[in-house]
């Protein structure tokens, strides 16, 4: 497909369709409505199914059903709706089903605002649902990257049989940017686990899509198996971008659209002679701990910049292991931190450290 201007939400939806997603279940909420709207017409063209569910709870459980048959399935929502999906996400993780969940984050808590925010970081990266589980979470910083990460998300979901989240924000969802849809071919995955109809002698075990393990020792074994999977995901799937870090004396750590604004601020500070670089986690779980830890040994200080009161900063501090001080700048409530403010925060860090 040629390069064309696309809104982030629509680009994510089209990327999913190109990746072979044929089942979408959603419920309206701003600022992600373009995803279900796009899917409601596009999936008809490609012989898929779109259901406007009665709630986010129902939508994620429809995903559980479709994903349990091995079909590439997706749902999308924004913060309050993602809270409602947590039950289903936990069950999907427990039952080891592949699917993609898009969260176009808005300000919270509660009904909050409809403006962009990054205040769902804890929920996304700590497993917002109950139980011992993890979930890969991709945080795109451009519409093009949102497209690529959406397609990668489907592959990672299938490879590890896990729910995967795209953690965007209102800016990514609403922004129009030039996009090139990649040529996508789905790798072959084993789907012999899926419930597609079984009979004696059909060559596989009867499928039971389930997260109930009533015997504690059996559940512990199951959770330990999940833990090994999460270790493999951390090992193989962590993504991070580092810019101007080679000679950096300071580092800004930011993800998603905040990282783009921070990059402009970093460049300005460089013009002022401050040797500062940018570390941008592309996966926020698994968090790029090694990149942060290595950098923390080289720089005088780090500045976490977020559209929240400061949530990712906890991961930065954990990874930095006290090798350098970590400072914070953020705006919350749906307010986007500006280049000038971040630039000032970089200078303040330099003055202090």
């Amino acid at each position: 497909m040629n390069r064309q201007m696309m809104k982030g939400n629509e680009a994510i939806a089209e990327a999913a369709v190109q990746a072979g997603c044929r089942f979408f279940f959603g419920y309206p909420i701003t600022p992600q409505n373009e995803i279900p709207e796009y899917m409601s017409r596009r999936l008809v063209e490609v012989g898929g199914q779109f259901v406007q569910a009665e709630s986010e709870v129902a939508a994620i459980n429809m995903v559980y059903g479709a994903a349990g048959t091995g079909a590439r399935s997706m749902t999308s929502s924004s913060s309050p709706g993602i809270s409602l999906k947590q039950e289903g996400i936990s069950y999907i993780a427990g039952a080891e089903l592949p699917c993609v969940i898009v969260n176009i984050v808005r300000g919270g808590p509660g009904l909050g605002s409809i403006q962009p925010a990054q205040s769902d970081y804890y929920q996304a990266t700590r497993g917002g649902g109950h139980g011992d589980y993890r979930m890969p979470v991709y945080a795109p910083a451009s519409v093009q990257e949102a497209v690529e990460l959406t397609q990668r998300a489907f592959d990672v979901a299938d490879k590890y049989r896990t729910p995967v989240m795209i953690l965007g924000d209102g800016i990514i969802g609403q922004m129009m940017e030039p996009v090139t849809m990649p040529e996508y071919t789905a790798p072959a995955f084993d789907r012999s686990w899926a419930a597609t109809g079984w009979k004696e002698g059909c060559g596989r075990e009867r499928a039971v899509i389930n997260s109930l393990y009533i015997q504690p020792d059996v559940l512990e074994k199951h959770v330990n198996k999940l833990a090994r999977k999460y270790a493999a995901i951390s090992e193989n799937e962590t993504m991070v971008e580092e810019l101007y870090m080679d000679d950096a004396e300071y580092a800004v750590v930011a993800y998603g659209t905040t990282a783009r604004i921070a990059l402009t601020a970093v460049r300005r500070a460089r013009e002022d002679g401050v040797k500062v670089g940018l570390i941008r986690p592309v996966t926020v779980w698994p968090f790029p701990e090694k990149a942060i830890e290595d950098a923390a040994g080289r720089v005088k200080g780090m500045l976490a910049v977020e559209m929240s009161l400061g949530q990712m900063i906890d991961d930065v501090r954990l990874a930095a292991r006290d090798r350098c001080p970590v400072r914070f700048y953020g705006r919350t409530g749906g307010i986007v931190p500006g280049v000038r403010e971040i630039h000032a925060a970089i200078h303040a860090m330099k003055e202090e450290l």
Partner: protein
Amino acid sequence: MAAPAIYGRPKFLTDAPFHYCPGCTHGIVHRLIAEVLGEKFEQDEVIGVAPVGCAVFAYNYFNCDMFEAAHGRAPAVATGIKRAQPDKIVFTYQGDGDLASIGMAETVHAAARGENITIIFINNGIYGMTGGQMAPTTLIGEKTSTSPFGRTAAANGNPIHVSEMLATLNGPSLIARVSVHDVKNVLNAKKLIAKAFQNQADGKGFSLIEVLSTCPTNWGKSPLEALQFVSERMIPEYPLGTLKEV
């Protein structure tokens, strides 16, 4: 020559022994479903969804591909399955807490969409699995562990008549209430369960069969008293019959 078998395990039941209490009619309903499925379909044509409730382990009993759904979400899960596997017969098996309380929205909307699935709804007027709390279908006057003085409309709200409610919708093709408290009713229940599955096979859309069922354990009754309770107390509140058929 061995005598020909005239009664045996339907192919849609595994050989796992049921865990239900003595006198509980969950087992009868399982058997009826399995018989009907076996008479109509091959195993690989059917996918079932178990609830959260006493029938949570139904996935161990129904001998076909099965899902275990979150509490009340079986109709949504079945919707996802049916959309992805439209040629399969998809059914859910749900209790009254599951279907009529926490999962009411999923139930009503699957019915309103005319989702081509079959729901077997076990109305035993109580939360069996969690130890006998009040259900949305508990009769006025009945004592449960969370309505210890007996259910009153003022304190606890009124019983919900699920089948009557769903019968007002345009989506469903068949809504019927049956009982399994005696042989005649068991045979009739089987007939309606068969019709519900046939409707799905014929593409007619949503069907729900409400089965009045017993919970001797949490009702504090013997199996026999429990069957009497169904005929004397439950049926007057929840009259049997076909409430909608198109």
